[in-house]
């Protein structure tokens, strides 16, 4: 009996409090018969800012200017699917301009230049008023045919100001250019050859990179040496939200 009584009391309280809220709302509405000029709320723009520090972990694979992208949807690349034309350009030549101009990009930023082995660079990217859901990073290993490394659509919406995420990244093959390692096809300093070529003469899907072979390890036609070989991981990346 006491239990039921207590329950009743609680229920009554609940009913009372909710009715108070309702009357409260109604009351304020009915009293606003004389027009009151409500000043529009001052919208100070909110900036979401991220510092992305990228370190090149390879022996002798310079990285093309790093592309950092904030986006809400989409992916820069998809394993098992053909690379986009914009991404093919980044992976074959190191030119990130088409990727940064893709429609899904809310805000994008390029690194200052080529990132040599052992070097690191911090790239700041920011956006006003829209909290970005995802962050992506991409760069070409320039002494290859079409190898790249980076982060694909990492969810950053829960990253608080001052918080960081660190990770090491693996290398992928865009699948758009055969890994001939010929001097004429390697755009980096090891070859000085052609970068982007729209002809797709490889498997035409993105996969993990099998690594470069080099002339020292049995590919006679290769312009690469043992020094250009790499293993995973190839980059160390730290993302810090600063605003």
């Amino acid at each position: 009996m006491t239990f039921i009584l207590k329950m009743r009391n609680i229920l009554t309280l609940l009913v009372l409090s909710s009715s108070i809220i309702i009357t409260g709302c109604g009351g304020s509405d009915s009293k606003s018969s004389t027009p009151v000029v409500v000043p529009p709320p001052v919208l100070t723009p909110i900036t979401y800012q991220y510092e992305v520090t990228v370190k090149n972990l390879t022996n002798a694979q310079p990285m093309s200017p790093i592309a950092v992208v904030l986006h809400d949807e989409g992916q820069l690349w998809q394993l098992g699917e053909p690379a986009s034309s914009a991404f093919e350009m980044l992976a074959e030549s190191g030119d990130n301009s088409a990727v940064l101009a893709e429609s899904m990009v809310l805000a994008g930023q390029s690194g200052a230049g080529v990132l040599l082995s052992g070097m690191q660079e911090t790239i700041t990217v920011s956006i006003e008023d829209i909290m970005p859901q995802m962050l992506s990073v991409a760069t070409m290993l320039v002494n290859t045919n079409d190898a790249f490394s980076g982060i694909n659509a990492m969810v950053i919406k829960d990253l608080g100001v001052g918080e960081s995420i660190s990770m090491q990244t693996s290398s992928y093959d865009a699948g758009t250019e055969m890994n001939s390692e010929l001097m004429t096809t390697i755009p980096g300093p090891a070859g000085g050859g052609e970068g982007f070529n729209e002809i797709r003469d490889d498997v035409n899907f993105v996969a993990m990179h099998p690594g470069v072979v080099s002339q020292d390890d049995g590919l006679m036609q290769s312009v690469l040496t043992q020094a250009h070989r790499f293993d995973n991981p190839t980059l160390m990346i730290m993302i810090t939200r600063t605003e």
Partner: protein
Amino acid sequence: MKILPLLTAIALTSSSMAINAQQVEVSVTNLTQGIYYTPFLVSAHSADMSLYTLGEAASPELQMMAEGGDISGLSAMLSNGNADIMENPAGGLLAPSMTTTTMLDTAEGNDRLSIVAMLLPTNDGFVGLNSWKIPSEAGTYTFKVNAYDAGTEANDEMITGGGAPGAAGIPVAPGGDGGSGGTGVTMEEGNMTVHVHRGNLGDDNMTSGKSDLNNTVHRWLNPVASITVKVM
């Protein structure tokens, strides 16, 4: 007064459900550009079973799988241990970049997940997930796995059709991109325990040289597969 027994009943049901079974969805993606996987063996088993141990010699059953893609031995071994098994979810080879997905209902006590398949073309390379503890908490868990060498066959890299345990050579290069006439990369297996695979060597000569494999097509770097487990 009636509430208490009801609560007890609920507690009992939920705990017995947790012990009884889990339903998991397992997806495996081939991350390589040029390596195929033979039919997968996906299993949930008890903590006292294991398909292999790094640094220890492979069982004859693992050898069958790693050298020829034959999972029947491992499957029988698991069945004897009352494991839950799904064989060949891809219905054949899993080609580069492809994904296969399967459901597994696990019985009480079978809270360890193991997944294996042979890498083709290799002599005795396999991809493995070894006794991964299935979380009791529902959710999606994704991780990457590496390629191992069973340590049972010399990595001669000669495509001879040899897939039976103890037979030298590689059964086949499913991509149709293998060579012939290789003299053999090595005739020795120095490390006779299960270890991380050093990768294919290959060469640039499809009709002679040491290897029948192509060094720009048949190499890989770890990881070689991505596994996603959805605990329902």
